[in-house]
């Protein structure tokens, strides 16, 4: 077997059981050197388990973990060339910032002067020069974040693991730290493996994202692919917002299909291997739905209908309109275009909405 030389981290058929519970089931992936890789999934999906296995705090039940082509199974956590930024950072409260950052270097037996030099250097790189003598408790949330990363990066690990480190921050700071984390990753040019349940974090920062559910990887790919070309219903529902209908296939013509939703809405879609009578799930993203004040432009679209505005949800650039289909009673979530045309849209107004076949993503219903 030839190890992929360009990958820093590789997991093969990684499986972990806790008693009868299977937390991680046959997960395969490899992370290219110097890239930002995220594992995205709801809480309890097994992503923390994967991270702890890579760090060495859990042994896999089966499967292999390779770092720079070498298996690290049986290697204790203090001997692995990976470092971890913990969920609550786990900065040592009994040490100041410089002692925290120098901790790993002291373990390697680096000379005192060298520790001071490298600590100062890494503080420069995270833009916090001269805070070495501060206590951890005196730092702001964002500063603690950066110190936690510096504490790992000073050891020049092959892979840096980050376990939802932004979870404890407030929204504004989180947005800022997203950008900063990405910049730090470029600055250090190290492979980052990031786990999160927040798709915003994963999509913005990552070169590649793995969407995880119930112990398995549903799909691995670039953020764009996950969003526009989800391979499973779970990915379509989890990544980004979507209107979601359950229904039954009524007619098939090649890859074209007509689906009748449970609420009675007729949706024209496309998909492989569909047969009449199949139960399916349809996802349509709010921004994929065009909205018009008159029927003329909408008429050409395979899915189009006249609807009534039932609510306006104003949220700046992310504003939405909730419309109701009078025939089926279904509520549909539509993105509100930021144009003058719709600035006077009010509750109760009649509008036309439409979307293309390719925008109605169709998957076999997995919940049955």
């Amino acid at each position, binding site marked *: 077997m030839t190890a992929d030389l360009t990958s820093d981290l590789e997991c093969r058929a990684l499986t972990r059981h806790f008693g009868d519970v299977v937390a991680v089931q046959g997960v395969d992936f490899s992370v290219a050197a110097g890239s930002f890789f995220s594992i995205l999934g709801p809480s309890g999906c097994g992503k923390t388990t994967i991270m702890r296995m890579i*760090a*060495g*705090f859990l042994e896999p039940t089966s499967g292999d973990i390779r770092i720079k082509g070498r298996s690290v199974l049986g290697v*204790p*956590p*203090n*001997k692995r060339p*990976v*470092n*971890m930024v*913990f*969920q*609550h950072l*786990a*900065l*040592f*409260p*009994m*040490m100041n910032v410089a002692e925290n950052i120098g*901790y*790993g270097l002291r*373990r*390697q037996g680096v000379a005192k002067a060298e520790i001071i030099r490298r600590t100062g250097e890494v503080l420069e790189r995270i833009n916090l020069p001269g805070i070495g003598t501060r206590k951890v408790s005196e730092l702001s949330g964002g500063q603690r974040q950066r110190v936690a990363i510096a*504490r*790992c990066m000073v*050891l020049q690990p092959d892979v840096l693991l980050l376990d939802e480190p932004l979870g404890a921050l407030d929204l504004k700071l989180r947005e800022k730290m997203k950008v900063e984390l990405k910049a730090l990753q470029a600055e250090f040019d190290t492979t980052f493996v990031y786990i999160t349940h927040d798709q915003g974090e994963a999509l913005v920062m990552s070169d590649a994202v793995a969407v995880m559910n119930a112990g398995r990887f549903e799909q691995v790919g670039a953020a764009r692919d996950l969003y526009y070309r989800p391979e499973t219903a779970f990915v379509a529902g989890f990544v980004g917002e979507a209107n979601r209908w359950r229904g039954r296939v009524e007619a098939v013509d090649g890859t074209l299909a007509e689906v009748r939703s449970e609420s009675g809405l007729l949706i024209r879609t496309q998909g492989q291997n569909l047969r009449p009578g199949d139960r399916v799930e349809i996802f349509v993203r709010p921004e994929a739905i065009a909205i018009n004040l008159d029927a003329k432009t909408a008429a050409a679209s395979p899915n189009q209908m006249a609807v009534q505005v039932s609510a306006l949800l104003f949220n700046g650039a992310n504003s939405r309109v909730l419309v109701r289909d009078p025939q089926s009673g279904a509520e549909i979530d539509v993105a509100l275009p930021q144009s003058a045309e719709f600035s006077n849209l009010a509750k109760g107004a009649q509008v036309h909405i439409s979307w293309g076949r390719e925008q109605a993503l169709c998957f076999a219903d997995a919940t049955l």
Partner: protein
Amino acid sequence: MSSKRLGFFLLLAPLVLWLGLLIILPHIDMAIVSLRTRVAPREYAPSLDNYAAFVTEPLYLFTFLRTAVMSILVTVITLIIAFPISYYIAKIAKGRSQAALFLMCLVPFWVSELVRTFGWIILLRETGVISGFLQWLGLADQPVEMLYNDAAMMLGLVYTSMLFMVVPLTTTLESLDDAVIEAGYDLGGTGPSVLREIVIPHAMPGIVSGCIVVFMLSLGNYLTPTMLGGKDSLWFTQLIYSQFIVRFNWELGAAFGFCLLFASSVIVWATLRLTGQTLERTMGEGS
């Protein structure tokens, strides 16, 4: 007077009465008594004779130093025995077994010190269980007396003090986040270095408060040295008792009492200073 002020004084009154009448005034009075000497029946003159006697009489000074040194020894031994136990309860045992182990540590101390000491007497004495067991095993061919010596006394003191070390240690160790220990390993630490740089510094308030309490209890213990110690294992509290109750020399007894109080205060203060802790944090609001 506003009702807020009235409430304040109503709450202050019991505290002041308690501390004033039962702690401060008695100690002041004891100081006065220790600083006088009897010149005739019911007639006293101020003097330092009692303290002079303490310093010049070798038996007094020797017993005093011996008591202090052995109390420190008891404290250290208790700490060394208790630390792994507390660590096990706080960090390794989980859920139900954790609660059960902690409770098992408490149980012996719901029982009177006298009963615990009595247990060790039955075990250790010449006709005792351990002696009998050794004979039965053939390791001894005649009854072995293991009671009435310093070792037995130390054993009793360590046993009696254990709770007061285990509880504060377990509490502080429990408050140490597992992730902090994991981070220590993740960054290349090994067992001893994580223990030295992370676990022990974190547990310091617990270690200090445990040590202070254990030291105090050993120093001021009368029962265990009297019951388990031998003729040569004189404990300073026994001197105080005999001056007060047997010889009826309250002046000297009071001076001894002050020496004991002084020793314990100095050592407690020094421990707090050396470890950068405060009494409030180790004993009260912090714990």
